[in-house]
């Protein structure tokens, strides 16, 4: 076994997004980091290389049947993206449904649900007020009607 390397000689956390990319491989990248990462222009090629390399490292360490050690062809990805760039695609820009476990959590805090509750309660209150008013009128009109009724013997 080779002697351990000096920690100081190891690559330091990069400001160019590679550390965020490493976290993304692990599903531990923060949304704000991801947004910055996806906008990285000049470092794009370096980030592509890092992304494929990190995935290859994981695949090689696990040596599992489903994982691919060989790096992808950037020409292939470029060809796919070029084809996608020429057509209008349905669904993009729409908000996808969340997985059930995320959806359940989000529903409890959903703003639109709160407004639906408020609207529902307001509608109930309006119906109740209208009903109360009608009832009130009938009660008030009752004696008047009795008074105006001709006495028949």
């Amino acid at each position: 076994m080779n002697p351990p390397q000096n920690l100081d000689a190891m690559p330091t956390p990069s400001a160019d997004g590679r550390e965020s990319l490493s976290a993304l491989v692990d599903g531990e990248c923060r949304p704000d980091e991801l947004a910055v990462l996806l906008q990285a222009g000049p470092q794009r090629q370096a980030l592509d290389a890092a992304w494929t390399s990190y995935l290859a490292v994981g695949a090689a360490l696990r040596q599992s049947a489903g994982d691919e050690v060989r790096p992808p062809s950037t020409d292939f990805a470029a060809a796919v993206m070029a084809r996608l760039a020429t057509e209008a695609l349905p669904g993009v820009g729409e908000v996808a449904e969340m997985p059930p476990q995320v959806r359940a959590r989000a529903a409890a805090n959903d703003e639109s649900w709160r407004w639906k509750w408020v609207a529902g309660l307001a509608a109930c209150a309006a119906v109740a007020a209208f009903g109360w008013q009608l009832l009130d009128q009938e009660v008030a009109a009752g004696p008047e009607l009795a008074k105006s009724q001709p006495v028949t013997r």
Partner: protein
Amino acid sequence: MLAGSSHTSSAHSDWLLVQRTLAGEMRAFELLVLKYQRRVERLIGRLVRDPGLVEDLAQETFIRAYRALARFRGESAFYTWLYRIAVNTAKRQLAELRRDPVLSMSSLESADEDETSGATRELMLQAIDDATPEALLASKEIAQAVNAAMEALPAELCQAITLREIDGLSYEAIARQLECPIGTVRSRIFRAREAISARIKPLLERQGGKRW
């Protein structure tokens, strides 16, 4: 369920990228293409057995996936969903070309049901067995380089990357186990990946762009 944890974090990473794609960031989809290109090619290569068709069908798979992305609900892993699209794309192509698939239709149908089914696993293992000698050599070289790089890593980095990639632990679980902050775990894993990547870089550059 060690490997399962690793798959869960990969699924979460894919979910994040899908969401960004749906928000209009094409770059996120490009990362998914880079991640799954080889697996899709290998799967299609097994189904159609025509090297001339494999790349076209793999491209078509990603195009179809992109068009249908809004219907991906995250109930299964992204690759499981993509896998079904790849199988359907291959089946459709075979039907259009009226070719006799090398595999029987029953094998294709069982492959279509679920990537984790026994038949499909068998397909994937066969696909690995079918890899060219060049591809096998490339994989072996990369694996050897990764192992050599792991042996040269400082213990802290080696522990962190092992707990993450092999044991499939989250950063939080690794932080508990190593009794250090999550930020340190994240930094160590990154530094380990960088060190290993530096070792395998020449091999990856040599392999990049070649056909499997």
